C-alpha cells in the first residue's frame, strides 16, 4: 500500500487538478467525436467502424475476461485435464472438491481472513489519517498549514524504493512503541496512514466544500469536533468512497511489504502465501486457491465499477 501509492500518487494528485475542467468542456460540447455525423452516414466509414469496434470488443473479451474465465474453469477441473488439454472449452469432469480442499486443507480460509483483516485495518487507518489531517489543514487552517502541506506533498516525489529498508528497520525497532512490530498486523496497518495522495485528495475535497456551511455551524455553537463529525464527514461520502476503494484494493494487492514484515506464515495474506504454497500443493487445488483470491477484488470492481474507473482516470493504473 505505502509502496504502490507513492509515485502514482504524484500523478493522481496532479491529474485531479487538471482533469475535471477538461472533462467539463467535453460534457458541455455537442455530441460528436473524431468521426463526424457526415462521416457516420458514409457506408464505408460506418462499416469499417463497426468491424473495428467488433474486433476491439472481441479482443477485449479475450484479453480482459479470458484469463479470468480460464481460471474459473481450471479451479473446478482435475489436474490431469488442465495439464493435458489446457484450452479445452469444457472440462471432462467438474470437481468442486478443489475449492473445498483449498479452503479447508490448504487453509486458504486463514490467509483469506488475514487479507481481510489487513485490508480492513489499512482502510481504517487511511480514512482516519486522511480525514482528520484533511480537516485540520483545510477547515481549521492553522498558521503552519503550508509547511505541513509542503512536507506531505514532498513525499509524493520520493520513489517508494527509498523507503523500503529504513521503513523496515523502523518497524523492526519502532520509536515510542518499544517492541518490534514484525509479525503483527500493525506493521502493515500503521504505515498505510502515511499516504500523501489520500491526504491531499481529501484535503482538496474539503477545500471545495462551501465555507458558509462551516460558518453557520460555528454560529450555532458547533465546536471543531462536532463540526468534523456532524457537518464535514456527512458531506464527504463521494471522496471517502474513492479513498476506501484505493485503500482496500491496494491492501489486497500488496505483496512486497507484507512479505518483509510478516515472515510468519500464520500471519500472511493471500498475496504472500500463494507463491509459497505453489511448491507443495497440487495444481488443481492451487488454481482453485488463485480463483478464491480473485473473487473479492473482482466482485468489488463489478459493484463499484464507476468509482474504480473514476479512480483510474486519476492515474490509478500507475504502479510504484
Amino acid at each position, binding site marked *: 500500500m505505502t509502496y504502490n501509492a507513492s509515485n502514482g500518487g504524484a500523478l493522481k494528485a496532479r491529474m485531479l487538478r487538471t482533469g475535471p475542467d477538461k472533462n467539463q468542456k467535453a460534457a458541455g460540447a455537442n455530441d460528436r467525436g*473524431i468521426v463526424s455525423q457526415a462521416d457516420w452516414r458514409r457506408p464505408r466509414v460506418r462499416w469499417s467502424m463497426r468491424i473495428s469496434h467488433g474486433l476491439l470488443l472481441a479482443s477485449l473479451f479475450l484479453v480482459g475476461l479470458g484469463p479470468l474465465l480460464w481460471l474459473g474453469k481450471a479451479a473446478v477441473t482435475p489436474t490431469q485435464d488442465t495439464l493435458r488439454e489446457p484450452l479445452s472449452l469444457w472440462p471432462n469432469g467438474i470437481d468442486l472438491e478443489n475449492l473445498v480442499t483449498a479452503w479447508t486443507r490448504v487453509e486458504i480460509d486463514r490467509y483469506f481472513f488475514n487479507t481481510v483483516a489487513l485490508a480492513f485495518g489499512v482502510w481504517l487507518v487511511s480514512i482516519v489519517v486522511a480525514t482528520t489531517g484533511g480537516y485540520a489543514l483545510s477547515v481549521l487552517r*492553522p498558521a503552519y498549514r503550508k509547511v505541513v502541506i509542503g512536507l506531505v506533498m514532498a513525499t509524493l516525489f520520493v520513489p517508494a524504493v527509498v523507503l523500503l529498508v529504513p521503513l523496515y528497520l523502523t518497524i523492526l525497532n519502532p520509536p515510542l512503541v518499544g517492541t518490534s512490530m514484525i509479525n503483527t498486523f500493525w506493521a502493515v496497518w500503521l504505515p498505510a*496512514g502515511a499516504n500523501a495522495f489520500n491526504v491531499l485528495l481529501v484535503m482538496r475535497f474539503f477545500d471545495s466544500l462551501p465555507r458558509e456551511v462551516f460558518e453557520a455551524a460555528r454560529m450555532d455553537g458547533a465546536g471543531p469536533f462536532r463540526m468534523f463529525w456532524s457537518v464535514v464527514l456527512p458531506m464527504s461520502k463521494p471522496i471517502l468512497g474513492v479513498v476506501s476503494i484505493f485503500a482496500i484494493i491496494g491492501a489486497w*494487492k500488496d505483496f512486497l511489504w507484507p512479505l518483509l514484515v510478516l515472515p510468519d506464515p500464520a500471519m500472511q495474506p493471500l498475496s504472500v502465501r500463494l507463491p509459497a504454497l505453489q511448491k507443495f500443493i497440487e495444481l488443481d487445488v492451487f488454481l482453485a486457491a488463485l480463483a478464491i483470491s480473485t473473487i473479492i477484488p473482482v466482485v468489488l470492481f463489478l459493484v463499484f465499477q464507476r468509482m474504480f474507473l473514476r479512480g483510474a482516470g486519476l492515474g490509478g493504473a500507475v504502479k510504484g
Partner: protein
Amino acid sequence: MSTSSTTTERDPIPSGHEGTDSAHGADAPAGLAPQVPAERGLATASAPRRAWVAWLNAPGRWASSGGLSTLIFLMPLLLSFGLFSWWPIVRSAIMSVQNTNLVDEPTFVGLENFQQVLSDPLLGTAVLNTLYFAALALVLGYPVPLAAAVLMSEVRKAKGLYSALAYLPVVIPPVVSVLLWKFFYDASPTGVFNTVLGWVGIDPQPWLQSADSAMPSLVLYATWAAAGGTIIIYLAAVIGVPTELYDAAEVDGAGIWRKVWHVTMPQLRGILLVTFILQIIGTAQVFLEPYLFTNGGPANSTLTVLLLIYRYAFENSLGGDYGAATALSLMLAGVLAVFSAIYFRITRSWSTS
C-alpha cells in the same frame, strides 16, 4: 456509462497559490520548543511567526482559540508521516553512509557503501536489464492502449462494457495473475500459450526458460496487467479534446485519419508525455514480475535494480547489507528525481495555463 463526466463532480483542487510567502521565514526561531515537529528549522511564513509569538505570550489564548484541537486533529497525520515517511526518508540518507548490522552501533563509513555497490559486477547487469525492461515496455505498452482508447472513444453503445473489460486485468491481484501467467508460460508444447501458437503454426517457445525470451515474457505480462489503466486515462483525454477543433479541421477538408493525426494526437501531447515519464518511473522500480516469475534468472537475465536492492538487504545469508541497499536506492532515486522534476514542470505549466 461515460467516463468523461464521472472523473470528479467538482474540482477539489484550487489551483496553486501555495508557496508564495514561504521564502522570508527562514530565520524563524528554531529553539522555541515547537509543538509541531514539522516546524522545526524549516521555512515558515510570517503569519506562523506571529502565531508563535502569540502562543508564547499566552498559551491559554492559543489553546482557547482552537490551536489545541487543531493539533489533536493533525496528530494522526503528523505521527504516521513522521514515523513512516519523513523519518525513514532522512534515515535512508544517514544509513547510506553508515555500516549498519542491527547488532553493533552503526559506524560512519563515508562513501564506502556507494563504492561497494558501484564495484558490484551485478550492478551493470541489473541496470541494463532494467533499461531493457523499460524500453520493451514502451515499445509494447505505449501504442496499443493509445490506439485502443482512440477507437473506444468512438464507441456509441455500451462504452462502459469496453472500459470494464479493458480494466479487468488491473483489478486482479498481481500475485494471482503472475502465478497464472507463469502457468500459461509453460514451455512444453502443451503449455497454454504454446498450444495457441500451435494453432497458427508457430513452434513452441521457451518463454521464461531461456535468457533471451524471459525478459520479453515479463514485459508482455506487465503490459497486459497495466494497459487497462492507461486506456482509461487516454480515453478521458481523447474525449476531452474540444470538438470545435474537429469541426474546424473538417472545414479544411480533413478526413478521419488526418483528424486523428493532426488534431487528436497534438491535443494528447501533454498526457502522452506524462504517461511516458510515469512509465519510466514505474518500470525503473519493477520488482514483482522478476521476483515471482524468474527470481532474476535464467543466468541473471531478469535481475533488475530493485531485485538487487532486495537481495542486498533481505536475502543476504550474512545478514542484511542495509548500507549498500540504501546507497543503491538513493542512486536510483536520484535518477528518478530528474524524471520527477521534468514531470512536475510539465504538469505545473498545465494548471496555470
